[in-house]
């Protein structure tokens, strides 16, 4: 899609049947000890496919990017908890860079009731704009350097929208700003987090994330099993 973002569609009917937007997959790469956690971009139950849009971050994702059409991948999926799909009213999707793909599956559910505000570094890094529009979601693009769409932060662009819930995926400062915006408007907010991960299923306790319990006490939960999507008020950002 760009110099370092790749778009795979994988035939996996058994996974497509049960996968939910916001869940992820652990993809095995030969020679690597740890699988690579990749978010599910979209799910096509009719075709029995999962779509993955991922950015090359290191050796593993670089090797993944070299797979060709017709190759086989060993995948554990679907893992974790996805986004809620029963939010009432208009849902604001806030995405940043490589955090935008998992929101496409959410847009596919809410369609005209979704407004996607997606931020990228620069014009050449913009991905999935037409895909979000094709879902029927109102789609606003922002770039940090102003080379395309709204010039500035995605959360500033989002202020001009009316919405009754927020879901967000992207870098930490963006997640904080999305949460603050939701608090300001008094609407529910869900955040998709990431952390370095090993088992992917909640056994090794590697992908710790700081959460707060009902009494306001901090504790470590885990992105793979408790998330990757969390209610914003449960996360100590």
């Amino acid at each position, binding site marked *: 899609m760009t110099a370092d973002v790749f778009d795979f569609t994988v035939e996996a009917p058994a996974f497509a049947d049960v996968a939910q937007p916001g869940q992820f997959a652990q993809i*095995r790469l030969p020679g*690597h*000890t*740890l*699988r690579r956690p990749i978010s599910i971009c979209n799910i096509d139950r009719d075709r029995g496919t999962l779509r993955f849009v991922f950015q090359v971050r290191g050796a*593993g994702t670089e090797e993944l990017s070299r797979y060709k059409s017709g190759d086989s991948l060993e995948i*554990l999926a679907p893992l974790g908890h996805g986004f809620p799909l029963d939010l009432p009213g208009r849902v604001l999707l806030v995405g940043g860079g490589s955090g935008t793909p998992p929101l496409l599956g959410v847009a596919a559910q809410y369609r005209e009731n979704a407004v996607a505000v997606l931020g990228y570094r620069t014009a050449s890094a913009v991905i999935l704009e037409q895909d979000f529009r094709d879902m029927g979601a109102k789609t606003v693009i922002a770039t940090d350097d102003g080379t395309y769409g709204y010039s500035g932060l995605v959360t500033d662009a989002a202020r001009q929208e009316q919405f009754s819930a927020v879901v967000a995926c992207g870098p930490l400062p963006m997640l904080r700003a999305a949460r603050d915006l939701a608090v300001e408007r008094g609407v529910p907010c869900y955040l998709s987090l990431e*952390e*370095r*991960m*090993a*088992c*992917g*299923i*909640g*056994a*090794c*306790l*590697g*992908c*710790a*994330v*700081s959460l707060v319990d009902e009494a306001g006490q901090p*504790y*470590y939960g885990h992105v793979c*099993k408790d998330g990757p999507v969390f209610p914003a008020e449960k996360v100590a950002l």
Partner: protein
Amino acid sequence: MTDLSVNVAGVGFHNPLIAASGTFGFGREYAEFYPLSVFGGISTKGTTLHPRPGNPPPRVTETPGGMLNAVGLQNPGVDAFIQQELPWLSRQGTRIVANVAGSAVEDYCQTVEKLNPTCVNMVELNISCPNVKEGGAQFGTSAQSVYDITRAVRDVCKKPLMVKLSPNVTDISEMAVAAEHGGADAVSLINTLTGLRVDIRTRRPILHNNTGGLSGPAVLPVALRMVWQVHQKVKIPIVGLGGISTWQDAVEMLFCGASALQLGTVLFTDPYAPVKIAQGLSEYMEKNGVAHVADLTGGIRPW
């Protein structure tokens, strides 16, 4: 038919594969993949007298041929283990090895006393966790302290007692001998090798704990060598672990002197590894006319 069953310190395991502590939680997650009876036993997540929150993230990172972890013994405490995990786990058709960690001799003893009246089949004394301050490794790095803690726990422990040894020592066989003299019924080795990786952009260690424990295929040759050395020095059985990821690795570990094996990091690469390793081991034994796993133990022919 080959017989995969083994006996370690009086405990019968229906096959020699035991899930390694810290990689398998209390079994619930992997029970979604297969019946836990795929394993002869499960060594449960390192459990302490009181709950522990664990270390701040990042806790894991991949390395060539392996990974580093510094989870920091996050666990709900021994009472929660006994009340919330053990009743379910005891119905899964596999032996339960309770891995016990602590920061003081009294903690270990009190934790073990709480396990005495339970259905746990064996206690594994973790004196080798490299990832918490006073998390046990200080007991595992001198022969005297290995002896002292083994002796103290032995006096209160009514279960077969296995001591898990650290490779971060000058001579691991001295530690094994100290554990044996202290009254251990078995030793397991190796725990992880302390390592470090640095993010060259931020100059920060990748793990928040700075250092972490190295595991995975990269450590297998070290583990084989250490098991071989220990086998020449002690009479008690050895449970071998460290980087086993194929059935061939498993056979090598048995030849070096292990009576049973633990599988850990390989589960992250392939959760089905125990199924494949048990199958491969069984076929190997059949082809080579080996009736019992114990016939492979120590079968190495050194030059």
